């Protein structure tokens, strides 16, 4: 973000309020890699150490989709049942929710159904939903079959992505496509010309 001195636009707030904010929420069993996905997306970082999320974390990124800069807030929710009530408070007004499972861990895939139910109960039904199989770099023969996952997602009209935060494979694709889909859903593409100010501030 290189800013020349004196770059300050006339009214920062007027610009800021015209921006498009997208709320993204990541859920899934403990340790499937929700935090890693969000970290990777926001900061292109990956660490192998596991540090469970205490309650909730927050990420932010400006992402250009079809020439529109989207302000993406990412709420990274703990998968622990201890924080179920905290999560439920944060589900409202979500634009995109991605449910993560670990491709090497069958039970995390079985948990996906419960996550869907939790979100359906407490979240807004207008949100775009996706299924994400993470840790593909560790995939073994006896892990979750990608076909099963794909079928599960298709049955519910959700898109399916596979990612690896360690190699970075698929992460950007997943977020871009998710955001693209939600942009289309909000029919923002047609408004590009009406938001010339927005595009001046690409990071």
């Amino acid at each position: 973000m290189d800013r020349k001195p004196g770059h300050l636009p006339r009214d920062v707030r007027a610009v800021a309020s015209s921006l498009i904010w997208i709320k993204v929420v990541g859920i899934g069993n403990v340790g499937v890699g929700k935090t890693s996905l969000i970290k990777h997306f926001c900061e292109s970082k990956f660490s192998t150490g596991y540090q469970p999320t205490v309650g909730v974390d927050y990420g932010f990124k400006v992402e250009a989709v079809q020439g529109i800069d989207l302000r993406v807030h990412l709420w990274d929710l703990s998968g622990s049942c201890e924080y179920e009530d905290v999560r439920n408070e944060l589900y409202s007004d979500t634009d995109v929710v991605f449910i993560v499972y670990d491709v090497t861990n069958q039970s995390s895939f079985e948990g996906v159904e419960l996550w869907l139910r939790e979100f359906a109960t407490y979240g807004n039904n207008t949100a775009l939903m996706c299924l994400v199989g993470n840790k593909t770099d560790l995939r073994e023969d006896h892990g979750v079959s990608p076909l099963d996952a794909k079928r599960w997602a298709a049955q519910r009209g959700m898109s399916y992505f596979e990612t690896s935060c360690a190699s970075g494979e698929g992460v950007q694709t997943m977020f871009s496509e998710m955001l693209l889909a939600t942009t289309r859903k909000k029919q923002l593409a047609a408004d590009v010309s009406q938001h010339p100010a927005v595009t001046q501030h690409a990071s």
Partner: protein
Amino acid sequence: LEVKCLHKGYGFTVRGGCPTQVGHIRQGGSAQLAGLREGDYITHINECDVSDLDKLDIAALVRHANSDITLDIRRRHEKSPWQQKIVYSLEDLHFECTSSQSDLTVQSSRQQCLDEKEEGKTQEDSVPVEEQERQRAVESIHALEEEFVTQMQCGIQRFSRPLRHCLVSSRQHATLFQNVEKLVAISEYFLGQLTTISVESDSSGIGSGDDDIISSDIGAIYRSKVKMCSEAYRVYNAGLTQSIQLLGSLMLQTTVISFLQDAEKVNGSDELTIEDFLCKPIQLYRGFERILLYTSPDNSDFDNLQFVIRALGSACAHDSSICQKSFHSVTSVGSRSQRSLRRQHRERSDNLSKTVEVRIYNG
């Protein structure tokens, strides 16, 4: 202006907060003899600055002072800083909400307050007052959280969001604003829990009228999420020094200064500055200690409360030194000495409230 009070029953009540005013004066009481008048602002008690304490703390202080007390007061006609500026909007909000709920209760509790200060009252008489005060303390926690969420969201809109797009790098932004979103989310959660309780109490008929929060559970609510809460505040607290230092160095840039001036001017009624915003989190849970003053050790919630207060206290431990330093560094840049003065007042009164707490544990 100094007022000496000679007897153990002082014969006056207090009202409002920040600064607290003298309420009713008992005819012939020592307060009246000493020349205290209704409406006087109490700034110091026994040379301790109490201008940032509210009436509950002041009442507790006065009540627990075992001998004569010396009050420093200001009269309305005297030009004083307090009349120009309301020092701590938070407390006003609290009293607005308690007093607007039912003037009758306030009136009656003030009366009880007065009674309690009279000589010869026994401990048993004050029990219902304690319960009432506890209820009030619970409401004030609710109000604190509510006010915190509003102010923080305002601060996020005003400072954090615009600055994501200009003037500072994203790394600087992260240093400045840290995990404020998380802190707000936590408070929103607690607020949700407190409100849920109030709804439940209404439907079950336990709640009486406007007192819609069941106080017995507040410690349990906080305790169940104390790990998340104290972790978040520990992180915030640990990074605050750096954040304030960065703010100090950013304030050397004219563009930043003009941005902040613009931002602070918005909605003139609400004067949240960036320093207030950044320091707000570490001040939030100070009001908590008060509830323990009014919770009897037999109460099932006492342990929970004590646990929570200890945990949050350690999470926000070395705050005052940071704030003190920080505001010197910031004030040296801008012409903000008045703000620093306010801060010092606040810290002194915080120390004071700690001694009150200790005293009550011992007694």
